[in-house]
């Protein structure tokens, strides 16, 4: 029995190590002085300095955050509303909406991306709308994010005691007041988790952005991808290390916050 759990320990720690191998290697190599290739030739902060002076990177950071912020805002509003309304749909509507939400979550993003490209180019031909750029990227990202937000909010709502809403109504709160004073504060943690998920999805997305991007609307993943394609890696290492550091800090904060909320 003892050896068996020992093996489990060993295997699991090794697997965790495996998960962290890429993260560690990127951070380590971001300090490598070699310009081309991966041979170690000394410690340097040169690449971080180069990043700060690189306008393309700064613009990509700005675009990425703007895109993530705007798409998160829209998808959180829409997704939350849908998550709230979904359980009060008629059964058939609920079933179909469930499927409509599930599909974008598991569908390879490239299918969604090319379908959007077709839509955009056809509509553009007739109306001139949907010039590729930030606008179309926001549209694409919102489409990806809505189902995630809606499902998170809905699951939070499932744990919501409906007698609270009735009690509030009974105490003189109109439907809107019930939502604003009772339902909303109670599902707020769920909404925030959904919004954070949406934000991360947007930061993480490469494929949708790649297909719907336009002039001057390059994001960090697009920048990283094209740099990797071109074989320019030291700056990418430094950039990736920064992105990873941000993600880790964000998750740790989120985990701590969530523990407090759940209490």
């Amino acid at each position, binding site marked *: 029995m003892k050896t068996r759990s020992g093996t489990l320990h060993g295997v699991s720690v090794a697997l965790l190590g495996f998960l962290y191998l890429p993260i560690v290697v990127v951070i380590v190599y971001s300090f490598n002085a070699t310009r081309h290739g991966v041979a170690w030739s000394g410690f340097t902060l040169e690449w971080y300095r180069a990043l700060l002076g690189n306008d393309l990177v700064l613009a990509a950071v700005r675009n990425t955050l703007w895109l993530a912020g705007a798409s998160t805002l829209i998808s959180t509003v829409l997704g939350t509303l849908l998550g709230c309304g979904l359980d009060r749909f008629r059964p058939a509507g609920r079933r179909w909406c469930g499927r409509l939400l599930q599909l974008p979550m598991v569908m390879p993003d490239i299918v969604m991306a090319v379908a959007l490209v077709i839509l955009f180019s056809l509509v553009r031909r007739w109306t001139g709308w949907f010039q590729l750029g930030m606008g179309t990227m926001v549209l694409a990202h919102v489409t990806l994010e809505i189902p995630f937000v809606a499902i998170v909010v809905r699951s939070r709502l499932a744990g919501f*005691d409906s007698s609270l809403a009735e009690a*509030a*109504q*009974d*105490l*003189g709160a*109109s439907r809107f*007041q019930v939502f604003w*004073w*009772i339902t909303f504060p109670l599902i707020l943690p769920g909404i925030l988790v959904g919004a954070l998920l949406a934000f991360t999805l947007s930061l993480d997305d490469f494929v949708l952005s790649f297909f719907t991007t336009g002039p001057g609307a390059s994001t960090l993943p697009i920048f990283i991808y094209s740099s990797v394609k071109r074989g320019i890696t030291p700056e990418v290492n430094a950039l990736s290390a920064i992105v990873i550091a941000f993600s880790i800090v964000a998750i740790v904060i989120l985990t701590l916050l969530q523990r407090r909320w759940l209490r």
Partner: protein
Amino acid sequence: MSTPAVELRAVSKRFGEVRAVSEVSLSVQKGEFFSLLGPSGCGKSTLLRMIAGLEWPDSGVVCLGSTEMHATPAHLRPVNTVFQSYALFPHMNVETNIAFGLRMKRVPRGVREDRVARAMETVRIVELAGRRPSELSGGQRQRVALARAIVNEPEVLLLDEPLGALDLQLRKQLQVELKSVQRKLGMTFIHVTHDQEEALVLSDRIGLMQAGRLVQVDSAERIYERPRSRFAARFLGACNLVDAVVRARGPGGLQVETSFGLMNAAAAPSLALGEGARCTLAIRPERVEWGLGIEGERGNQFSAVVEERSYTGPRTHIWVRSGAGRFQIALPSHAANRAALGIGEEVLWRVPPESVVILED
């Protein structure tokens, strides 16, 4: 007679194929403590929710005061509810919970604080003001829920099994307090419960419900002493139900024949039972007299054999067989002990005619 606080006229509600409430008419007077009593699933909570506006009747009229309100949404009705689960808002402390209703009605801050303080005093929870509901015990939550409702000074306070989740001792204590709060405020209380004892203790009047119908509305005493149906007789405490056939009508009542023998019953004059009609008698066990003291009397007197006895503290229940029937008698325990009734002994028992109730079904 002044306008009733609540009046229901032929109110019905069905959920799918289930008739939850059918054709209920009822009026509750101002200042009255009224209980809706019935087994679970009898429609009493639905009826209460229709008064609160949380359900809409399929048909019928709900009047609050003199206004028809069946189409008014819950938040515009001058009633408040204490929910069975209390439904305290977990993200607010006790004080904000209580102030919620006043805030929704935009009562000015100063007045609001005054009234909240008074309500907390009334239910004696002043020291809990800053706590969250999750930090309260069951009894404390119940008080908060009560305060949250009465602070709005509703015309009618609805209580949906308010004490159901508490243990027996606490329940008894809170029953007393609930009654005293109601007397102090002079508010109309409509209270839903499945606990007959609670209903008897608290209520001025009780409405007994069965399968969506209101079967009897009477004062607590009358509903216990004068049940109108087998259901009413059985639901409120133990009762002997005896099949009988009417043999004769006299000026003071009926003479009926039972499996024990002939029995006199003081029947209400309205009861239209002819000779030969079948009926059911209800006789409360504690109304039965027995033993030495009654020997000299005539009528309604039978002999029986003790079959079983059980001691329950203040009373001792004795089951006797008399003729073809089995019968329950409840005696104060001290009397039973004095009589030293052993199983198998023969005893005499008697029912005063005024204690024999002839049921309508």
